[in-house]
């Protein structure tokens, strides 16, 4: 019972807070503009595909393209900030004003307080995502496109990934709020982690990979094998005979890039923003993330583990906190 009482109050506090409304408004405006442009491009490609005027093996355009790179980047930036602002002072403010002590003098367990706060914020984030999706669907409908059930499932998946992303930053902020002495320190800690995970971590991946693996092997590619003479009326594909030197060169280069990618990916999976973009991009057959690999398991694991770890630390810390 205590959990739901706290969650209800937190939800009401969140959605009526001025800073929540302000950041949400900016995020929705930015997203709406991006979705509007994305929808134009998607409908154009979709109509071309349907009319059969697209040649080759180009896959059917995915509805996820309406969220596109810039739409996702808008959610990535403003959504991340929104998540941080929702959580950075949840505990510190209550300690500063003394309301936590008053609350704890009533029959409520501490775990109900922290879980209730998280649940209330999660419900508010659900509302944020629902609004984002409603805007996207509204734009599509306005442009005369009726999404199929597959499209709706893809949009729902996008919503769930976005919800997990926003909750990740909320849990980071909640973590900062439980370890910091006051709200200003908590804000600094939360934004520090945000910058490290979204900007520094991907850059660090490249730098560490460069430091460990070094520059690409300094070997000149062997001369390409002679091209076989095409014979008239022969429609068989041309097979290039590879020389042993050429295969050795390719093996060494692949080995180098595989090592480098493995190190970089380790850092990328620690970055919620990279994981978010990779996962959203993977929903579409025409990915919009450069150099994206097909296997997104690592990104998915990293994406789930990060909020769980931050929330678990906050939970333990809050339960052991000395409130004097």
């Amino acid at each position: 019972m205590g959990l739901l009482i706290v969650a209800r109050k937190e939800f009401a506090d969140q959605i009526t807070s001025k800073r929540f409304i302000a950041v949400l408004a900016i995020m929705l405006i930015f997203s709406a503009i991006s979705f509007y442009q994305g929808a134009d491009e998607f409908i154009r490609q979709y109509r071309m595909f349907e009319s059969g005027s697209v040649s080759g093996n180009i896959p059917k355009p995915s509805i996820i393209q309406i969220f596109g790179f810039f739409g996702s980047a808008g959610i990535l930036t403003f959504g991340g900030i929104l998540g941080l602002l929702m959580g950075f002072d949840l505990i510190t403010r209550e300690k500063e004003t003394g309301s936590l002590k008053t609350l704890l003098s009533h029959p409520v367990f501490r775990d109900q307080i922290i879980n209730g706060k998280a649940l209330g914020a999660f419900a508010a984030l659900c509302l944020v995502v629902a609004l984002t999706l409603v805007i996207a669907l509204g734009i599509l409908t306005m442009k005369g496109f009726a999404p199929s059930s597959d499209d709706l499932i893809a949009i729902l998946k996008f919503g769930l990934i976005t919800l997990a992303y926003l909750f990740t930053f909320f849990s980071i902020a909640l973590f900062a709020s439980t370890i910091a002495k006051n709200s200003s320190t908590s804000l600094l800690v939360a934004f520090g982690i945000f910058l490290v995970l979204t900007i520094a971590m991907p850059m660090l991946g490249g730098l560490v990979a460069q430091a460990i693996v070094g520059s690409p092997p300094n070997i000149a590619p062997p001369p390409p094998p002679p091209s076989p003479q095409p014979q008239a009326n022969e429609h068989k594909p041309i097979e290039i005979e590879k020389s042993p030197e050429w295969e050795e060169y390719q093996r060494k280069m692949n080995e180098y890039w595989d090592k480098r990618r493995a190190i970089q990916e380790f850092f990328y999976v620690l970055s919620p923003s990279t994981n978010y973009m990779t996962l959203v991009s993977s929903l579409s057959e025409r990915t919009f993330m450069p150099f994206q690999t097909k296997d997104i398991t690592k990104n998915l694991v990293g994406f789930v583990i990060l909020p769980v770890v931050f929330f678990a630390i906050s939970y333990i810390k809050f339960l052991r906190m000395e409130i004097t």
Partner: protein
Amino acid sequence: MIEVENLTKMYGDFKALDGLSLKVEENDVFGYLGPNGAGKTTTINLMIGMLQPTSGSIRIADIDVEKNPLEVKKICGYLPENVGFYDHMTAKQNLLYFSEFYGFSKQETVRIIDDLFELVGIADAANKKVGEFSRGMKQRLGLAQALLNDPKVIFLDEPTSGLDPQGAADFREIIRDLKKEGKTIFFSSHILSEVKEVCETVGIINKGKLVAKGKIEEFNQNVTIVVETEPSIDASILEPFGNVKVKDSQIIVEAEKDCRIEISKTLVQKGYIIKELHLMEPSLEEIYLRIVQEEE
């Protein structure tokens, strides 16, 4: 009603409470005195289940606080020092929120809250945001939230600090009324005159240890009687009653008990006119300082 046994609380290497044992009877108003940092608030926080003791036990109405903190909170009310609320909510919304944890019906809650606002004198400000409240109003609201569940035991931590004289007097009046209703009150304060006015039993804590406890009158080991007569009296006449000192025209008698009637009879028999005959009890402040200094 409150039984504390061998209670110790450590903050790292610092011993905030050191083997504290204490008993407060039902319907008692217990004054808890001590210098800053002596461990008063820590004791209350442990009693209300807000902190975990390092060792020792606390029972309130026969409920073990450590094992059943929620049960204890259901029968206790707590007004913390510098009580805090949700500033963006009105006074009524704050109390409605806290009352939800007791599972009262909506109708009952509204009635209880309205009565409490009347009791603490902030009925006019019930729908005002707490962020706009003065310190005194917050303190009154704090008392209302402490009484929300009609508690058997009420913990008040420095309840009148920040109140104006009228506010402090109102507070004392409410405490007396609560005592009449049969409540047990644990009252921590550094205002000794106030403790003396509302408390029957007093405990003095210093450096985490309870150094004295008892009824206020039990602390008065000696009494001082001031005598002035016309014509001036020979001090030796009063020597049978205790140690005698002459101060200007007055005689100061330090006696083991109040013997003003006997002194009065003697003076009348000897034909003196009594200009002054009064008792000078040591103030609680003097008792407190003496005890704390003895412990230093």
